[in-house]
């Protein structure tokens, strides 16, 4: 089993505190880099929805996404009864947390753990206020309900303990069921496929149901065939279920998606996952095409994160015998 160093995680109990627009992680005395990395400075001036929306388009930039979430949060605070602004703020918070979760995933040894803890700690403080605000709304709106569910899944993914994570997943199932019964394509199809994912992944005795998860994912795929994250996940499930043709179909669709229809970072990440799935399928042609598309995307947009796993503590992605990367 791999672990990170004592020093790097000595400040695991970091608490994020908000000082104006500047987030600072406590514990700087032991890990100064962690505190520094969790800081960000947002554009000056009064928050506006257009400024926040502009920041959100930079889906490769954790600080831009953090500022977008903060700006939307400020806007919601200014008009707490405006449910549309609140749901927008919660969606921005979810996007930011999901981005941090993505970086956390690739930080295999928790080297940046204090930074991720500080960032999600700060975002989830705001998110829980927004989620509670939406919960009191008397509008039975699929997007509202789905946002609450997706927030529960996002914040608890790494930040919460396992018991809370399990409770939030089960609460999300109930909310997502309600949301998709109102509108099965809510949040660009994300509500439906996330429902399928939770059902598929939870153990049966803890509220999961693999069969039901598969049915829902198939339905989600038919309804939203151009959602890159859905395509990659549905292909992954097909591989697990030995449905090679189904997986190839979805990966071929993923190949056809253009950056204009998806966030750059999201698309690059799904192409990376898709390429790896194609390798597992033994489809070298598809693997090469997906890899080529991702390489072109990275060349055109060098700001996109490469998502290379870090090497530490005698583990790394590079094979020392062949010199080849993971």
């Amino acid at each position, binding site marked *: *089993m*791999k*672990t*990170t*160093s*004592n*020093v*790097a*995680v000595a400040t*695991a*109990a970091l608490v994020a505190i908000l000082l104006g627009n500047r987030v600072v992680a406590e514990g700087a005395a032991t890990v100064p*880099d962690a505190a520094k990395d969790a800081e960000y400075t947002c554009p000056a001036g009064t928050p506006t929805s257009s400024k926040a929306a502009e920041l959100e388009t930079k889906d490769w930039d954790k600080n831009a996404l953090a500022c977008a979430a903060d700006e939307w949060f400020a806007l919601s605070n200014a008009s707490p009864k405006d449910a549309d602004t609140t749901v927008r703020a919660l969606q921005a918070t979810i996007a930011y947390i999901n981005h941090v979760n993505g970086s956390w*995933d*690739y930080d*295999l*040894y*928790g*080297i*940046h*753990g*204090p930074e991720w803890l500080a960032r999600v700690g700060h975002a989830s403080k705001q998110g829980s206020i927004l989620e509670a605000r939406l919960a009191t709304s008397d509008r039975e709106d699929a997007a509202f309900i789905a946002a609450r569910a997706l927030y529960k899944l996002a914040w608890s993914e790494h930040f919460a303990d*396992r*018991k809370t994570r*399990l409770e939030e997943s*089960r609460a999300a199932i109930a909310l997502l069921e309600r949301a998709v019964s109102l509108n099965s394509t809510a949040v660009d199809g994300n509500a439906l496929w996330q429902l399928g994912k939770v059902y598929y992944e939870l*153990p*049966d*005795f*803890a*509220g*999961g149901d*693999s069969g039901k998860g598969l049915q829902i994912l198939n339905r989600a795929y038919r309804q939203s065939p151009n959602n890159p994250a859905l395509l*990659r996940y549905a292909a992954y499930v097909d591989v*697990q279920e*030995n449905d090679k043709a189904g997986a190839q179909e979805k990966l071929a669709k993923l190949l056809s998606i253009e950056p204009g229809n998806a966030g750059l970072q999201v698309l690059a990440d799904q192409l990376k*996952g*898709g390429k*790896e*799935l194609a*390798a*597992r399928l033994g489809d070298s042609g598809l693997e090469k095409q997906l890899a080529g598309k991702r390489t072109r995307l990275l060349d055109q947009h060098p700001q996109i994160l*490469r998502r*290379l*796993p*870090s*090497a*530490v*503590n*005698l*583990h*790394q*992605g*590079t*094979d*020392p*015998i*062949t*010199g*080849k990367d*993971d």
Partner: protein
Amino acid sequence: MNQTQTVRNVRKAAHTIALALTLVVCRALSAETLIVKPGQSIQAAVTRAVPGDRIEVEPGVYSETVFIDKDNITLHGIVRHGDWPILDGNNKLDNGVLTSGHGVTIEYLWIRHFKGNGLMTQGSNNYRLLHNVVEGPCFYAIFPQYGKNGLIAYNVAFNSEDAAIYVGMSDNVDVRYNETFGSFTGIEGENSHNILIEGNHSHDNSIGISASLLPGLPLKTSANIIIRRNVVENNNIPNKLPPGSVGTLVPSGLGVLVLGTDRTIVEDNLIVNNESAGIYIAESSSMDPSPDEKIDPFPNNGQVLRNLFRNNGTRPQGVVADMLDAAGLKQGVDVMSTGKGHGNCIVDRDIVRTLGTGRFEECPTGATSNAITSLKTREPVGSVAYNPEQKGRLVYLAVCSGCHTWDSRLLGPPMITVKAIYGKDAAGLANWIAKPVHKRTDYPEMPAQDYLSPEVRLSVAKYILNELSH
């Protein structure tokens, strides 16, 4: 100089070279025994040795790191009337014995108090690690990695921060008759194939024995691991891994953990007093959510055969407790699974307490692994000596990556800053590695790596400056 003189000189030189070559060949063919006494250096003997030599170490205390990158060396400790040769890191040195040579035997050494690894093989094939005592605190006590065809037997390994015996990315290894305790995991086979873990006593760890498949590593599968005839008891010490580590998601109190590996057989073990569960079978992503679509995270085609279970699951911890809570249970079970994967089976389902094994089939009548007596290869595997680039990567992984990462502070500074300082000056960096000077007060002093030969230090330096990027 006239022509006759020149011819004479050339003949003389040729004669000298031929004589030297003959001596070298003869020396290699007639293996020698080199004796190391207290006050002398084991590494100095290794440096003098040629492939095939035997180094015998007299009882006493030695404080150094021993690095063996020659083939067929035997490092044998002489234990006399209970007095051992002790290799002591004094909680200051990083590594005890490191090998990257093939056909190495390390036996009868008491290795203790190294901050990194007690006894590590990196890329060594056909190795034998026998009758050693490896004592923490350390990170890993016995850690073979990237090797084929090994035997780890009759060792006592304890008080590791992570695994006491950790077989990583290896093939064809027998781990037999060892005792492990006081560690996060007693024995672990990770991203490895054909591993026989038999007859060991693994007790008082957080996890007794585990077979695992982790994401983000070069080897993408882990299969054919037999866990058989072990005594696995009282593995309930708290998981002390630092928060943020992957292992923190793993609860203590597990007898046997099967995490994403395929064709794993658990048979004829005595599994008692493990407070979370006797055997826990789960997908890799449940303990390590790192994305790696090249691995199949689900455990497939595993067999839980006859084992003796007693008094497991009395005080479930962590994710096991959470799962049980979700199922409305307060007490743990003997065999618990998240229920993912295909083709798994179990015997005696009616007499064993289980949870989540609904999709497991009944194993075929008479199913047993008894016909398999070893998973080592019949003959030594062919082994080619590593070139300088390979040595550079292997040594970086074994020695440097415990303290340094590419772009982040760990114990030492990020390598990206080292690269900025040295640029293309590999020779300069190689010299500094041998005799580091404490320059930056915000980092601990780096131990001298002068046990590495100048050639190996240069290979590592070149790897850091030319190849390493993340």
